[in-house]
């Protein structure tokens, strides 16, 4: 920029003898100094440490996994044949002390084009192009290197933007202080095992990453009486439901696997194998319905129901 000749009446301040240029450079310098000074202050203001992962859950596996889940809809009977609520959900909420109302893996009764119904277990789909991770304003939700979408409940601000962004409705919010059994308090929190749930934050299925790292199957997979759920590794091309081990790519291909709402481009890591329960002979007019999930510790979900007075309504 060409320097124009100085016009003293314009840019020279008689009172403290400072030109505009000096003022601007001075202000920029001061701002820079303030920024430098604020660095230790930032540390001070920032007590949030990266969440600690207990040693036994640490990833000892050298290989990078790409975890995925395969749900065999042909086998899933919603546990109506067992005459129990869906066992995957029961195993999950018992293992994670999920607050009442949160079914991290939920079984829906979905309709078939021909008029029948089928049972559809829905965990978090751990999308590769995860809309929830994209919109998080504070990076509280993120993907670990195995592709599992995790939430750091020490950072989450509870804006619920991720819930609005999730096209599968697989995220839940801890609307109050969760009512949990006393043993939940002994759990050591980490993003891969978010127990106990933190009030005012978003929570969801995290593929039981704490188990996967120890070489165990997730609660839902081992809890399924039909062995309809498989845990797989896309990198090693292998999957297991705890009883059999399959070659993943061939298995998905032969069974004509699909992903829910594939057209959205979210690339879920959960594959469905169509089949609609033929194995067990479910007919379109089967009267047996899903049984509602019961939380063993009961309660209202979040303690203290709200009334107009500060102490609230007393729980009945």
């Amino acid at each position, binding site marked *: 920029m060409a320097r124009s000749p100085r016009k003293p009446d314009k840019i020279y301040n008689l009172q403290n003898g400072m030109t505009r240029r000096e003022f601007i450079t001075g202000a920029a310098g001061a701002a820079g100094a303030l920024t430098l000074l604020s660095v230790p202050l930032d540390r001070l203001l920032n007590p949030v440490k990266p969440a600690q992962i207990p040693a036994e859950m640490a990833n000892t596996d050298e290989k990078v996994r790409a975890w995925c889940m395969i749900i065999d809809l042909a086998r899933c009977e919603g546990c109506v044949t067992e005459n129990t609520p869906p066992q995957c959900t029961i195993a999950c909420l018992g293992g994670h002390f999920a607050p009442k109302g949160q079914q991290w893996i939920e079984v829906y009764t979905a309709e078939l084009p021909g008029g029948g119904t089928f049972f559809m277990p*829905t965990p978090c789909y751990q999308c590769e192009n995860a809309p929830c991770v994209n919109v998080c304003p504070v990076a509280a939700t993120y993907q670990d290197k195995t592709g599992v979408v995790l939430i750091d409940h020490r*950072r989450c*601000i509870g804006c619920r*933007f991720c819930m609005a962004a999730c*096209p599968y409705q697989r995220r839940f919010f801890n*609307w109050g202080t969760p009512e949990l059994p006393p043993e939940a308090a002994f759990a050591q929190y980490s993003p891969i095992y978010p127990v106990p749930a933190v009030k005012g934050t*978003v929570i969801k299925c995290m593929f039981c990453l704490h188990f996967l790292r120890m070489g165990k199957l997730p609660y839902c997979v081992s809890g399924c009486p039909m062995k309809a759920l498989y845990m797989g590794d896309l990198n090693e091309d292998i999957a297991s439901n705890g009883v059999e081990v399959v070659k993943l790519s061939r298995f998905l291909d032969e069974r004509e696997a699909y992903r829910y709402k594939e057209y959205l481009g979210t690339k879920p890591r959960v594959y469905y194998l169509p089949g609609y329960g033929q194995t067990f002979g479910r007919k379109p007019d089967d009267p047996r319905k899903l049984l509602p999930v019961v939380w063993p510790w009961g309660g209202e979900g979040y303690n203290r129901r*709200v009334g107009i007075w*500060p102490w609230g309504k007393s729980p009945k």
Partner: protein
Amino acid sequence: MFRGVESPNERLQRRVLAPLFSTGAGYRAFVLFLVAVVAWGVYAYIVQVNYGLMATGMRDVVMWGLYLVNFVFFIGISHAGTLISGILRVTHAGWRTPITRMAELITVVAISIGAIMPIIDMGRPDRVWHMIAFGRLQSPLLWDIISITSYLAGSLIYLYLPTIPDMALMRDRLAKGTSSLRQKIYTFLAVGWQNTPDQRRRLDKAIGIMALAIIPVAVSVHTVVSFVFSMTLRPGWDSTLFGIYFVIGAIFSGIATILIVMAIFRKLYHFEEFITDKHFRLLSYLLLTALLLYLYLTFSEYLTVAYKLAGEEKQLLATLWTGSNAPWFWLFVVAGMVVPAFLIIIRRGPVIPRVVTAAVLVNIAMWAKRFVVIIPSLQVPLMPFEFGAYAPTWVEWSITAAAFAAFILIFTLFAKVVPLISIWEVAEEQEKEEAPAQETREKQQPAMRPSPLGRRQV
């Protein structure tokens, strides 16, 4: 002071400054009432912090509610200032001068109230600083923060700059005594204004720059507010039209708000002389323009969806048109589009009651419209389950009432500190009208000449 015949300028000063020097019992009672409503809202918020968002009607399916509706509504009406004082100043619309101050005040107050709403909505308000410490620029919420804080800062400057000569006027008037604290405040705010030609020229230039700069910032604000919704894969939100749809909606409700505020202060502060039928008429034409634009956008938005009836979108339209959200939707269509359009087009009866009725209806309808945009899209099931339920609780209604009360309260308090009509600008305009011969050359220039920067002769 008022010897002989009052000059127009003296009368202007007397009228405009009168409310600043006298405070009636009614005013105090009104302020007290507003403070009580705000205090009740604060109590409701304390209850909410205590129990968590359990205290609201929001749940896992419909996870956003009234707070976000209020957020979009208040950010929307903040566009009043930009339109009236930014766009009309840039286009040299001389009639704007008596209403610019009020419009700019609406902007500043509305944006402050609007910006608080997402914080009230947060599950962890204690962690609001995470937004700064760990902010991710990839998130539309960060765009909101940047845009809204810029707009707030810009509007504050833009509100303050044209008040400087009026602050100096207050300072000089108060020099004769009364409260020394007030005098000190006005002396400080007047920043040594002596009305020298050099100062006038600089002020004009600064205001001109701000008038231009604030327009893109205002457009960006409501665009990124819409992005919070349109960046998701929800039915009704997944739309490329949302940016301009929200901006036009904001200008629409902004004009309606300025009309209401004008009418109230015209009556209360006896501004009949300065704010005339002409202002209401001209603004009503602007309102009609915004209405027609909004109608057009609404039509495009819904027709493109209704023609295709894609899965979830069909469910959304069903709930909007005939389902549980139909009252809200048709309230918006009838009270926000049809009735105001007829009230403005059919020019029968006195202009002010007619236009103000339209403006009130528009504001009610636009609040309903924000509800219609946010809630039904969340209710539509994305998985094989039932429609989501949402019934706001007393906590949400209390905080909503408190937000409106706070808006009026801040405005009412401001009205006692700052002259609500920009005295020097109106005086300048009066002089121009009295000396039309000098102005003919300038008036022959096309009205839409863009840059007023420092070109105006003082």
